[in-house]
Structures are given as C-alpha cells and as structure tokens.
C-alpha cells in the first residue's frame, strides 16, 4: 500500500488499560486478563462494550483469542483479526484496525492481549515448535537466537557486554518511577554482568521478565474521538515487516526488518527520527533496542552500543526510551507489544507522573516478534501533530 493511501491521523486511540500484572490470582486465564483490560480500556474511553464492533487479539496460550474474548464479553464483533506474529502482533492489529476503521468495516476497535506465563511457567505458556534443524543443538529459544545476534554485533561493531548492560540499567532507572513495575530495586552494570549466564553473552539481567499480564487499547475514527473524554492519541503511521521464521534464515543478524517497518511508518507519518519525543522499543533482550535504535534511524548502523552507553536513553537523557521500565524491568508477559504501545500512548496523554517526558507529542512504539522475525512500528501523535 502506498503512503499516499494512508490517512495520517485519521484513527485515534481513545482508551488504554493494563490488566492485572505480575503474579495474578490463581486460576486466572489469559482470556480473563484480556477481558479485564478490555473492560478497563472501554471505561477509560467512556464507551460501552456493546459499541465494540471490531476485535483484534492474540496470545501464546490460545489459538483463537478473538473468538474466546468475544464469547467472554458477550459481544458480536463484525470485524475481527487474530494475526499472530509474536510480540509484534498488536502493532499489526493497530495497522489493520486503521484500515478497517477507515473503510467502515468497524467503528470501535479493541486490541487485546493476556498471559499467565508466570503462573503456569514459560514452558507451559509458550511451548516450542519442533524444528529438526535446530532441536539437536538444544538452543534455549528464543534467547539463544538473540544471543547469536548479539555475538555478531559485538564481532562486527565492537559492541560490549557493558554497553548491553546499560540498556538494562536504564530500564531499571525508569521502572523505579513506575508504581506498577515488577522490579523495585536499583540495578548496576556490574550486577548485570555478574548475574547468571543464560546464553552467552546474555545474562538473566539481559533478558526480559517472565510475568503475567495483559492490556487493551480502544481505537476509533479521529472524528468520533473528538467527542470522547480522553485526549485522542492519533495513529500517524504504521509499518509492518516479516523477514524470517527461524534464526538460521535471518539474512544478516545485525540488521532487522525494523529498517523496513520504520521507513514505512515514518513515510506515512511524514516524520523522521528527529521528530520523535519518546521511544518505546520492544526490549525482549538488551540487544534488541540496540538493533532497533540503528534500524529505525536514531543512530548509524553499528553505533547502537555507543549510543546507549552514556545514559542517553535513561531518565534525564536526550532520547527517553522505555519509560515504563520496559520488558526488562516493568512487565513482560511473553508478547509484550501491547504494553509497549500503552506506555507511548500514556506519555502523549501526559499521565506518566514522575517519569513523564516533558512536552511529549510524538512517540514511537516498536514491536518485535519471534526471533527478530516480525518488526512492526507505530507512530503516535497528540492532536497538535495531526
């Protein structure tokens, strides 16, 4: 689809909410959490569930999220989409919701997610798919794939484990300002480096959390958003790309398809990296935001390690990133992309309290799925940017 077909800002997020996070009540299901977040997000928007006629959902623990969520909520959406490309699924859902809303296929769309992976264990929540060409070598997936990418980035560009650790340290500094973040104690580079090694060069502190959680956002047309209670957060541009399924088929382990999704999102938004006030980048592992900073154009290829080492992404830095504390310190239920967007939306609404980025009008939310496989970018903007 050409950029000229994209109606910049014509769709807005009008409601956003997390479900219960961290460790949820016994016997809670992923669909319970989706439903809880949806009800909260619809209330946030000042709408009713009966008005929801577009439903977008995905989860690791169910193959048919839209069906089960519609059943739970007793709604009959006329448009639905359960595209599952891992943690970036929800950015894709936003892109698809924009097309659907612009074409009148629905009028109020909900994008929802839920996971109980801490309660049931990660192995139970996300069973691996058998692959003969990987299984004999016993890679712990997905972390080993990201470790291989990190090894290659270190080899080609001189990126250091200390630089990667700075990503985790900055995330923790932000998390200490987020009352619902899972991690509550400060973290140092030395602590990251001396933590238990999982897949070299990544220690457990280079890896995202394994917790329960979910979320939902409500989207409608910009015209309708004007009359609703919350300041609309407009979708300025979206980009979607998939480059491979298993890590052996990733063409170049140091360059992701975020390069494609980012260019598409920026072109549709008619913006560039210099216009972005806040970044929400999927931090499954410390290497991922380093790759995305490069591929989205915030620094040249190979400079990501040096970009993050001087506190530029930490509180007070020139490029505020992952202000919620990210998947590393706030919440990572397995497919974290929805929560990546919620923080960007809240920053534009100006409701982030101590961690609020002053004058945040444009925020970039970037999702990653699989083993650096799917890359989807959404640029959000305040009404002043449309």
């Amino acid at each position, binding site marked *: 689809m050409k950029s000229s077909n994209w109606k910049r800002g014509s769709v807005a997020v009008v409601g956003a909410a997390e479900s219960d996070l961290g460790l949820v009540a016994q016997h809670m299901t992923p669909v319970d959490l989706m439903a809880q977040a949806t009800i909260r997000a619809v209330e946030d928007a000042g709408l009713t569930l009966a008005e929801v006629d577009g439903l977008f959902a995905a989860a690791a623990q169910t193959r048919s999220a839209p069906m089960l969520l519609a059943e739970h909520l007793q709604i009959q959406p006329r448009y639905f989409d359960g595209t599952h490309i891992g943690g970036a699924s929800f950015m894709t859902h936003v892109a698809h919701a924009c097309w659907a809303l612009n074409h009148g296929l629905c009028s109020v769309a909900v994008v929802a997610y839920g996971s109980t992976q801490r309660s049931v264990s990660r192995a139970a929540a996300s069973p691996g798919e058998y692959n003969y060409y990987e299984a004999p070598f016993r890679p*712990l997936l997905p972390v080993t794939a990201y470790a291989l990418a990190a090894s*290659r980035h270190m080899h080609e560009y001189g990126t250091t484990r200390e630089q990667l650790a700075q990503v985790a340290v900055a995330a923790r500094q932000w998390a200490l300002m987020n009352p619902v973040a899972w991690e509550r104690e400060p973290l140092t580079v030395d602590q990251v480096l001396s933590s238990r090694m999982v897949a070299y060069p990544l220690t457990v502190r280079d890896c995202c959390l394994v917790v329960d959680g979910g979320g939902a956002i409500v989207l409608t047309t910009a015209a309708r958003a004007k009359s609703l209670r919350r300041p609309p957060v407009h979708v300025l541009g979206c980009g979607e790309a998939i480059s491979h399924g298993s890590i*052996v088929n990733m063409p170049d382990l140091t360059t992701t398809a975020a390069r494609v999704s980012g260019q598409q999102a920026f072109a549709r938004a008619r913006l560039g990296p210099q216009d972005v006030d806040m970044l929400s980048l999927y931090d499954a592992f410390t290497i991922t935001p380093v790759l995305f900073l490069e591929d989205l154009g915030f620094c040249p290829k190979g400079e990501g390690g040096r970009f993050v080492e001087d506190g530029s992404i930490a509180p007070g830095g020139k490029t505020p990133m992952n202000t919620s504390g990210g998947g590393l310190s706030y919440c990572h239920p397995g497919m974290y992309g929805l929560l990546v967007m919620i923080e960007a939306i809240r920053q534009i609404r100006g409701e982030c309290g101590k961690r609020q980025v002053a004058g945040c009008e444009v925020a970039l939310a970037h999702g990653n799925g699989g083993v650096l496989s799917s890359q989807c970018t959404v640029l959000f903007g305040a009404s002043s940017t449309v």
Partner: protein
Amino acid sequence: MTNLPQSPTGRFIAYLEQGQLAYQVDDAGRPVFPPRIGTANGHDLQWKISAGRGSVYATSVVYRKDEAPLNVVLVDMDEGFRLMSRVEGMEPESVRIGMRVRFVVGEPTGSGPRFPLFVADRA
C-alpha cells in the same frame, strides 16, 4: 499426481546416513537451506552435496542448571548456505566467530535422527 516418496527433511537425513551434508539450489544456482519443497526462485529445487567446510558466523553458549554448557553456532558453509549446529571437541566458550570448521555426522542419543555437527578444521 502421486505423493512424494520422501519429505525434504527425510531426504536430508537419508544423505546424512550416507555421511553427506546435503543442501538445495534454486533455478539461479543459489543455495537454499534448510531443505524445502520449493521457493519463489525455484519450484523444483536441485539437491547438492556440500564439501563440508565452512566458517562460524555467530556463536553462543547455553547454560542449563545441572548440565554442562553447550555451544550453539550458525555456520556459513563455503557453498553459501547457513545452518545451526554445535562445534565439538573443544571448550564451548572457545569457539570464535570466523573459525574454520568441518562437518561430521552427529550420533543421535536414543532413537532420534542423525544431525550435522562440526569440529575445528585444522587442515
């Protein structure tokens, strides 16, 4: 149409049992791996046998509780295809990117199929 007598992976394993590391090429002669039915660049891929030599493209070491650490590598074969494997016969932490390696057939534990392994190529 009759059913294929062998899946792409079945054929790959059959080659391995003969001590050979097989891969495919598309219509333009470009290598394709892992083996598959067909691609946009060749509906009928041709099978080739690798000379078995390549270089480590990326490396990691996986640590599991109560188990010896295991090396996991991506190897770029000289013919231009890449595969996941393990370099054996050395400390897992000593495997380096760029190291020359040579293919050997891995013996399955239990009843699983054989798989390709690598050792340092000192030739």
